[in-house]
């Protein structure tokens, strides 16, 4: 019992930190509510969908920035997609970066776009590792026979 309580406490603290760092926002909470007995792996599935999508978009943007005359409209479209995806999943920091990215696309700043691309990449990687950790802690609790406390 003691170990389980420790696991739960660690999980709760970790999760709170993700929210306080704005890595996750309220939309992620909504996502958790959608997980039910008919859809038990909903969050994990949507998360992996997001990361696949993000990787594709980032690669597209990277190659667009590499070629001759940079097509800012196309980059903007891609960033728009990513913004939509990230806001759907509740990836707060990624979304904010996308907002900034779009501004740079508007002003057609190559440097800005490049910097934003790096940041987006960084944010996505960070989010992935944080979520992996969160899911692992969750799984530990479940295998120990406990249950996940809801977010207040």
């Amino acid at each position, binding site marked *: 019992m003691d170990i389980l309580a420790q696991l739960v406490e660690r999980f709760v603290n970790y999760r709170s930190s993700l929210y306080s760092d704005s890595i996750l926002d309220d939309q992620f909470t909504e996502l958790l*509510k959608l997980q*039910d007995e008919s859809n038990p792996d909903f969050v994990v599935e*949507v998360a992996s*969908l997001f990361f696949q999508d993000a990787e594709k978009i980032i690669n597209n943007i990277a190659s667009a920035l590499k070629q001759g005359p940079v097509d800012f409209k196309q980059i903007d479209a891609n960033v*728009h997609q990513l913004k*939509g*995806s990230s806001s*759907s*999943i509740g990836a707060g920091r990624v979304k904010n970066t996308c907002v900034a990215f779009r501004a740079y696309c508007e002003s057609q700043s190559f440097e800005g776009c490049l910097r934003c691309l790096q940041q987006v990449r960084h944010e996505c990687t960070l989010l992935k590792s944080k979520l992996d950790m969160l899911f692992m802690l969750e799984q530990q609790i479940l295998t120990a026979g406990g249950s996940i406390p809801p977010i207040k």
Partner: protein
Amino acid sequence: MECKCFDPQWPADELLMKTVAIVMTTAKVFTAAVSCITALMLVHIIPDLLSVKTRELFLKNKAAELDREMGLIRTQEETGRHVRMLTHEIRSTLDRHTILKTTLIELGRTLTLEECALWMPRRTGLELQLSYSLRQQNPVGYTVPIHLLVINQVFGTSRAVKISPNSPVARLRPLAGKYIPGEVVAIRVPLLHLSNFRINDWPELSTKRYALMVLMLPSDSASQWHVHELELIAVVANQVAVALSHAAILEESMRARDLLMEQNVALDLATREAETAIRARNDFLAVMNHEMRTPMHATIALSALLQETELTPEQRLMVETIMKSSNLLATLINDVLDLSRLEDGSLQLDIGSFNLRSVLNEVMCLIKPAASVKKLHVVLNLTEDLPEHAVGDEKRLMQIILNVVGNGVKFSMEGSILVIASVAKAEFLRDTRSPEFFTVRGDNDFYLRVQVKDSGSGISPQDIPKLFTKFAQNQSLTLKSTGGSGLGLAICKRFVNLMDGHIWIESEGQSAANRVQNSFPGLKVLLVDDNSVSRAVTRGLLLHLGCEVTTVSSREECLHVVSQDHRVVIMEVCVSGVDSYDIAVQIHGRFTKLHERPLIVALTRNTDKLTKENCMRVGMDGVIVKPVSIDKMRTVLSDLLEHRVLF
């Protein structure tokens, strides 16, 4: 003188001899002739004589035989007469003892027996006890074990068997040495048990019990048992068996009749007592009805009047509480009176024609204020096959639904209450959970099915049976704020039963996990979104609310797939929005009739007025602003389905 003599040729002697010779020859010839004739005649006569003789012998034999047979027939006739007499005597009574006694007496007389006795099997089945005897008045105590060889021998055949006079069953009188006991015969008497008389098959002979009848010829006499006497005994034994079984049947039926009479008397008494009790109860209720209501109404009326006077805030609070309590009390009194009338069947339904849909809507209106105070959402879903009008007890139907929905509101802390009214389908009626629920439908009848689902805390399985019991409170459900009298559901159940219906509760128990909310069961939604992540999230949201979701990722696909089946089309509208608007116009063009066209809802991040106006212009039915929460989606969908428009 001359004599006429002639000179014989022969001398006198010779003449005599010749005469004799002639006579003798003639005699011989005659004799011979007679002998011949006799011989000839004898040839005919002797066979005749012989045959006559044989016939005479034959006839003598025949006469002797006939004499013998005559004797036999005579004896048989006599014994037959005796048997008939005996049978008549036996069958003329249904009393077991008389039957047996008579048998022994008659047999003794007919066959000139010294002693005749009957051994009956004891209850244990292991011994035979001397039960009846011709000479001894009250035979007592003689028993023999049943598994003796001689007894088995006798029981093994249906014929009378000669047994030794020394066998235990035959030694009935103390032997004084000088006597040479007479021959003894024993025969089995089948005792047919009642249980052998089954309806479908004849009695099983192998499981019968037997009694043993022993017959003794007089001692010191040379008489022997004749065959016909043995046959007589066999016949008598069978007759006795039948007579005994008749007697047993009679005993049984007499006993059963007596038992029935007793039970009838007891039942009559019980009925009378019950009637008296009901009358007493009704009298009490009639009096209390009036007596209780009068002061009740007075209290309520006066409190209402008091409220309209000048009161300090404290006083007002007190008066309000008095009013609330009085109203509660009045409801309780009414409920109790209703319930007792329901229980003894004196309550009649007020059958009349009414508008079914308006009843349901009115219930919703009545419950909405209480629900919105607790921030609960109440949704009414009426299926298309629900008729507009129905015939039944309108007031009580409303009371039932209001009670159940009210409970849902009372015991839910958050979430929504969903009321679905439909016509019960045949398959549903078949596998309904209650074994007592039989459905008998006329052609014009239909079963109204009302489901009330709430997202409350649930009910534990052990509390469920008590829910419909009157006055049984559940500890977990009673909260200070709720004032459940404990009667509401009990009355509902009785009203429902009176309407030939069935009411039950299903609860998933108390769980904190997310449950699939069946807010919109079977609602077909078409989701259009080209962003795979956002599409997956919105789809998950709709699935969680119980919808059936089809997803497409492009506008073209949408137009390809959309059909009458889809009640709602939710489409992601991006900034430019040109394509989406076009879709809406196309859908309008395709489905001209209002009830065929799916409702179109736009999903967008834009909160500006322009987007909204554009959506309205192209004929969309609503706009949802992202990000969408579960509650928001639910509210939007229910408002949309209710009013068909969201703007």
